[in-house]
């Protein structure tokens, strides 16, 4: 990742702002914030050259808790915002933070096209399988039989499988992490940021308030039985038998990241009107 500007001997504490999070104590996102700061420190990123972009939801509050530049935008559109930013400022490191609602529901369309477009950004989705910020509605990754106020008895719908979608849509790096292992999550984030093109990391991050059953996740996650592949076919086969708790990097692709077409030299503004002249 040649465009990362680095410095030596970085402390994760340098990447935290003094704003105290509103997340409920016990929220997995505290660990994710830790992973972010550890990853940034490991990479030696300059906070002023790093931008964390987010949408709306508990996870999306993260930018202000870092000491980097941030954008807390509107619901579901963080990938579009990050794309416009990165394409015009390729010198910045752009990390996008989202949740399962913001990213997979309202943000679903932009997810597809961001994978396809393969701009060099890193997309971290903190998946707690519920709409936390708005008090517990089902999200696209919620289990079909999970009882909620808006869907009594459960939605009955097959949950969205984000890694399958990411792979199919062309993401260049696909991984799953677990917030309860912040060091490992940090390692995965380091690789994701370093990897060129669109890197997608789904982080299972339990919601202590609306999904107390997710405390069980720490017993259910397990390392992926096999190392990452660069063969999309292999990755596709593996993901079809994924139990949703495989932790690790699934796929590291070789697609060239998006490059804006640049002309070798710029012309004088006055040249632009020649085509209109009589």
């Amino acid at each position: 990742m040649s465009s990362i500007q680095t410095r030596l001997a970085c402390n994760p504490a340098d990447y935290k702002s003094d704003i105290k999070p509103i997340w409920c104590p016990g929220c997995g996102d505290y660990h994710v914030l830790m992973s972010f700061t550890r990853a940034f420190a490991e990479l030696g990123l300059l906070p002023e050259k790093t931008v964390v972009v987010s949408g709306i939801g508990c996870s999306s509050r993260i930018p202000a808790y870092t000491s980097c530049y941030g954008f807390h935008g509107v619901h579901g559109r963080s990938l579009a915002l990050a794309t416009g930013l990165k394409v015009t400022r390729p010198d910045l490191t752009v990390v996008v933070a989202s949740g399962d609602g913001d990213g997979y529901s309202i943000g679903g369309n932009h997810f597809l096209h961001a994978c396809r477009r393969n701009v060099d950004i890193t997309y971290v989705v903190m998946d707690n399988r519920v709409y936390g910020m708005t008090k517990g509605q089902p999200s696209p990754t919620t289990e079909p039989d999970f009882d909620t106020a808006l869907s009594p008895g459960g939605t009955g719908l097959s949950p969205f499988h984000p890694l399958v979608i990411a792979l199919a849509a062309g993401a260049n790096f696909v991984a799953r992490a677990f917030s309860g292992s912040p060091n490992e999550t940090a390692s995965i984030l380091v690789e994701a940021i370093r990897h060129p093109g669109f890197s997608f990391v789904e982080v299972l991050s339990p919601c202590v308030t609306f999904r107390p059953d997710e405390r069980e996740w720490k017993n259910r996650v397990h390392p992926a039985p096999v190392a990452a592949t660069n063969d999309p076919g292999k990755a596709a086969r593996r993901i079809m038998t994924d139990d949703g708790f495989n932790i690790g990097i699934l796929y590291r692709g070789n697609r060239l990241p998006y490059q804006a077409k640049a002309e070798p030299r710029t012309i004088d503004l006055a040249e632009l009107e020649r085509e209109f002249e009589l």
Partner: protein
Amino acid sequence: MSKAPSGHTVSSPVDLLAIAYRIEADAVQRYTLLADQMEIHNNPELVKVFRDLARAEGIHAEEIRKQAGDIDLVARAERLGRWQKGESPEEVDLGSAHYLMTPWHALELALAGEKRALGFFTSITETAKDPKIKEMASEFVEEEAEHVNLVYRLMRKYSKPADTWAQDLDPPISQD
């Protein structure tokens, strides 16, 4: 040279000192983080408990740092690798926190942390070949054992909370 369960490679007593320092320093950070969380979530009793724990760990950290003299333990720990595969023993599980947690819960958390650190140093005494490392590790074992007992004593001040400890009659608030 020994490889601890966390994956750290300990080649000298100074390495062990660096790891021990980091264990304490990380604990300070963790308890401070928890104290801040409790402050924002209006649980003043727990703010005090966690700040006290942070202070205690800070004293231990300072003692270790004095032991190292001029050696930069932070840089040393960096070079050992901030993490390997899996988590290191110093992690306090933030997932166990709760805005209504009681001091009993906090001390349970602390106890688990101290026990893990104790277990880590114990394994070093068992696997280290270098006698100097063995000796230093066994000193830390004594320290950590004292911490464990301290936490047990503190826990006796509090009774295990009733099953309804997490009950809040107010509903959650939607913020965004």
